[in-house]
Each structure stands twice: as C-alpha cells, then as structure tokens.
C-alpha cells in the first residue's frame, strides 16, 4: 500500500480548493457550462441521464480500509448509498450534487483519494494488475512503477489537453489481468539479459468505435527511461493526433494512419532529445517510492491448515474456495476475489454497508488492504488460509460470496441506458437476466471459464469487443437491438470478437446466449476445452448455424 506524504497531500488539497473555486464560479454564472465542462471532466464529473456522476480514482486498484470507508461515506452522505466499480479501477457515484462535490472531494482527500483525471482528454487513472505484489511468479510489483507514472501524469502541464483521453495500464505477470493490449499505452514489466527492470511498450490499443489491439512499439525500454519514453509518445500524439473528428482522435487512429513503423520513428526521434534529461529516473527515486509501499508482515504458516481441512466437508464452502480463492506468492496465504456479481444484481455495484463491512473484514483478514480489478470485482490480497472459512461465512452474510468468478455470470457491463447519457440501449437488465438464467452453480461450472461483456453503446465501456461473448446494444428505429460477437479476449492473447449474425431484440438476448452455450457444450472436444478454445478451433460458423437455425 502506498502512503501519501505531505507533498502528495498538499497537491490533492490544492486540487480540491481549485475545484471548489471552479464550482463556485460555475454556480454564480461566471463560468459557462461550455467552459466548465472540461474543468469538471478533468475532475471526474460527468452529466448523466439522471444527475451528475462522480468518478473517483483507485490508482492501480489498491485501497486501504480507511479509503474504502471514505468511499462508503461518500455513497451514504452525498449519494444514494451505493457505488459502481468500473473496468478501469475507478468507482462511480450516480447522483452527486454539483454544489456538494467540493465537500465530497475534501472528505476523500483526507484519506488520500482524489478524482483527478478520471475523465477528460488527459491521462487517465493508471491501472494495473489487481494481484500486483502478491501473484506467484510476478517479476516485481508493478505498482511502484504505476505510482511513478501516476505522479508524472498528474496535472501534466503539457498533456492536459490532448486530442482525446489517454489510458495507461501495467502488468508484471505472464498472465495479463490488466488488459494492457486494449490501452493507449500498455506496459509489460520485464527484465533484460542483464537482469535490469524495464518494459515492453505497446501502443495504440483501444476499444470503442474502431477497436485495435495494441502493437509493440519497443521491445525493451529501461525502467530509468520510462518517463521520457512515455513523454515522447505523448508529445508526438499531442501534436499530430487528430482533433478534427472525435471518433478519430485516439492515439490508436494516429498509429494506424501513420503505421507503427513511422509512428515509432517519430517517437524515437523525439525520445533521443529528451532521454538524458531530468526525466531520467535513478534507482534512488524508485527506492524512495518503494519505501512508501508497505508490505504485510506475513507469518510462517502451513500450506494446509486444519481449519481449511475441516471446512472442506462443507460443499458450499468448497465451491466458493475452488472458485474465488487463488494462490498467493507466500505459503499459507491466498488471494480472495470478491464477486460483485450476485444473481440478479447489477454488475460491479456495492452498497455503503457492504463497503464498510468489507473494510472491517480486510482489517481482520487482509492486513487492511483491498484491491479492485478491471472485471468489476474486488479482492482481499493477503488472506491466511486458516481464515478462509471464517471469511467465507462473513462474506456470505453480506451477499459477497457468490462463487462465480470467471464464470458465465461474472459479467462485465457498463451502466448502459439506465444511467448513461451516451448509451443507446440498456446493459444492466441484460446482465441481470443472464445471471438468473445461469444461476445454477453446477451448470456454470460445467461451462467453465466464459466472460460475457456488455456495452450499451459503441463507446464500449463494457469491453464487448473482448468478451468471449460480447453484447453490444444499439438503437434501431427507437428499439433496443443487441449485436452479439464471440471469440474476443482481453488477456495476453487479446483478440476482437466476431459478429455471429443480425442483431436481436432485448427479450431475445438471454435466449441467444443460451443457444451459444448449448452449441459450445455440444461442440467442445472435451470438458477441459474452454469456450474460447472451441471458438478458436471451429470459428464462428457452427455457432452461427445453431443460433440462427431457428430464428
């Protein structure tokens, strides 16, 4: 966990008072909405269907318990008692009053939380692996670098008015949980032959109207050079990225139009100018940041404690353990994923009571630390295995022990037309219906790993392109219509899904998904062949045939 020092705290407080002044000028009419819009967006404030929406950053997905309690407090005091965790390690509140926002920000600033650059055409919250620092086999904790980049990108004087938003994600594991290939810059932490830390740098990934998988622009950038390299990419983008058309303004379009070779030459040229500047980071700086991350004092614990052996007799516990508990790099500990996808619930929502209760559980069982993942679930990163049975009971009482992590009901969904002013169709009710259809745990387990992603419009906040099954809501003649793709994925083998046929109506979506799943169960070679592997082996056609044969 990173602890803010006086310097970080001062900056956050200065940002809050600046925003307070901006809100005051807006409410008095001194600022027009046209002028204010960008200012509020730069601080995470959108206008949605029902009200203002407030998006708060959870950098690299790490939260301390006092921070989670502060989020619960904001939900309770300034909103309607709940929040929505997004796919980019943020939390959103849906009903915040503009006039009260400065107070909410001040309450959050007390625990080192802010909303800077959670929206707007600037560098967004830097995201990372929610298992950072605890995943077995990880090269090193990517959050040290995430924090370095978070600082560097915060209120950047040159890049706060980019052609379009800009997102950076970092992973340090072979298995990419941070979806780096669908980011503007994806960083894969690696070691070179000398054992030095650096990054493979990918650029130009993104979803939305024109989806692209990111391309490698440089196979190795030394850690000490990473800020200058990012700065070079941004400088090229700031000057040459398109500003004439909002749909062509992301860096992915520039990379596509120039071609990766030409784009990388431009970056390389710029980089040579600034490489040996004050952007160079030495080991001491990294050590300083590292020293402000605290790591738990793990105990020496047995691999298989008695408590776990005894609890194994309870099939419900076992179902949850097998599903939601992952190996930890330290023996005797586990990483516990907390599903925010209960049957019939909106994906990614948590009530203030749940947040408070989770904070208590994290204090008790996870060294006071909580993580937020891009799949819209939470995690407790350091749970002693002996505590798993007690933790499970407590989570179950809170409605937070649904054993569906990575299963068909672990759905990513954007807020859709129920909340969002850009949406053309609803997302959440589709997700709710699917969680009811596949509520049977044995069935979901039989199906195995299968990610359904739902977006309510082409902007793709629900990452539908990279869902194993992707669902995109559009509007046609005043009606909601859903296009369905299969074969997408967001991990290290990221791929875009393929459309399986004409769009279907709201009421038919769950039926179509059932048909796809039935087709998969019939087509798979053996039970271990996952959905995405069957699609890869057979292509879209056999699925299409079965789904549309009767339609």
């Amino acid at each position, binding site marked *: 966990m990173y602890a803010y020092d006086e310097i970080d705290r001062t900056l956050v407080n200065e940002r809050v008072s600046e925003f307070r002044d901006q809100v005051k000028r807006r409410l008095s009419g001194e600022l027009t909405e046209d002028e204010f819009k960008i200012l509020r967006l730069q601080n995470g404030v959108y206008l949605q269907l*029902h009200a203002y929406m407030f998006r708060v950053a959870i950098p690299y997905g790490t939260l301390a318990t006092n921070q989670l309690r502060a989020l619960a407090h904001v939900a309770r005091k300034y909103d309607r008692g709940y929040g929505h965790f997004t796919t980019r390690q943020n939390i959103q509140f849906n009903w915040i009053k503009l006039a009260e926002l400065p107070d909410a920000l001040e309450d959050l600033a007390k625990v080192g939380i802010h909303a800077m650059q959670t929206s707007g055409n600037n560098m967004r919250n830097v995201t990372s692996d929610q298992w950072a620092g605890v995943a077995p086999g990880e090269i090193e904790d990517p959050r040290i670098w995430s924090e370095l980049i978070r600082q560097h990108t915060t209120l950047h004087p040159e890049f706060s008015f980019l052609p379009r938003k800009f997102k950076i994600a970092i992973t340090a594991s072979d298995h990419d949980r941070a979806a780096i290939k669908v980011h503007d810059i994806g960083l894969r932490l690696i070691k070179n032959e000398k054992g030095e830390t650096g990054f493979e740098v990918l650029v130009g990934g993104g979803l939305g109207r024109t989806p692209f998988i990111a391309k490698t622009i440089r196979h190795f950038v030394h850690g000490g050079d990473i800020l200058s390299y990012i700065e070079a990419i941004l400088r090229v983008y700031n000057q040459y990225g398109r500003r004439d058309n909002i749909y062509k303004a992301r860096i992915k379009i520039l990379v596509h139009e120039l071609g990766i070779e030409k784009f990388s030459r431009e970056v390389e040229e710029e980089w040579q100018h600034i490489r040996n500047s004050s952007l160079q980071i030495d080991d001491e700086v990294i050590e300083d940041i590292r020293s402000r991350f605290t790591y738990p004092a793990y105990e020496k614990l047995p691999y298989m404690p008695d408590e776990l052996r005894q609890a194994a007799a309870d099939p419900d516990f076992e179902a949850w353990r097998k599903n939601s508990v992952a190996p930890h790099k330290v023996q005797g500990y586990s990483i516990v994923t907390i599903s925010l996808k209960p049957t019939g619930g909106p994906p990614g929502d948590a009530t203030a009571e749940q947040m408070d209760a989770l904070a208590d559980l994290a204090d008790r069982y996870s060294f006071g630390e909580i993580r937020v993942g891009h799949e819209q679930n939470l995690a407790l990163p350091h749970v002693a295995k002996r505590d798993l049975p007690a933790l499970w009971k407590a989570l179950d009482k809170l409605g937070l022990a649904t054993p569906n992590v990575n299963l068909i009901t672990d759905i990513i969904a954007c807020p859709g037309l129920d*909340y969002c002013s850009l949406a053309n169709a609803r997302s*959440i009710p589709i997700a709710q219906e699917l969680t009811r259809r596949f509520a049977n745990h044995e069935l979901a387990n039989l199906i195995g790993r299968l990610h359904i992603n739902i977006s309510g419009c082409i902007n793709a906040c629900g990452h539908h392109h990279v869902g194993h099954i992707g669902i995109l809501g559009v509007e046609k003649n005043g009606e909601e219509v859903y296009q369905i793709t299969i074969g997408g994925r967001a991990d290290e083998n990221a791929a875009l899904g393929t459309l399986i046929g004409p769009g279907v109506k709201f009421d038919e979506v769950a039926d179509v998904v059932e048909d796809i799943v039935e087709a998969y169960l019939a087509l798979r070679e053996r039970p271990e062949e996952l959905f995405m592997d069957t699609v890869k082996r057979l292509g879209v056609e056999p699925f299409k045939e079965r789904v549309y044969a009767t339609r």
Partner: protein
Amino acid sequence: MTSPLEQKKIKIAGPSIVTANRTWDGIVVYRTAARSWSADLSEAAIVRNSDEAKALLAESVADDVGAIGPYIAPVQVGADGKIEPGNLREQIRRTGVTIGQSAQA
C-alpha cells in the same frame, strides 16, 4: 461543445418538450411555459412545430446557470392532456432505472 442551436435543423415529428438537468444538483428538469424549470413533466411547455421548438430551446440554452444540456425530446399527450415521455430514454429519466433495485441489498 456545439450549441444545440447550431446542430442540424431542428425538426420535430410530434409534440415535444425541452428537457435538461438542473445545474446545482443535476436532477432532470423540464422547461415550463413560465420560462423556468420544473422537475414535473406535467408542467412542461409543449411545442408542436419546429419554430416553437426552436424558440423554446433558444430560451432554455440562454439559461445556462439554471440548467445544462437542454435538448428537445418527444412526448405523447393523452386525450386528457396528460404528458408521457415519448421514448425509453426519457421514460428512464422520468421514472428512474429499470433494474429493479438500486444495488444488491
């Protein structure tokens, strides 16, 4: 941001209203005939042709401190004069989310 007035020609197909969100708290409001805003759809000024719509929108846009993001939205007016939203989006803005519950309890 393009002003709504600069957007393509304003054309309405049937009875319409102007709706926006109130600046200080963001709630959904409707432009009234009394040149102010109301949270109650039944108080909305109804326009029936493009000129009326344009005029109502223009005065709404001018009240930037009162409400933001005004636009024209279709409504249905019953025989009894009761106003109902003309599409799903406006229905949701009026009656709230359709997800049955605001969060898992």
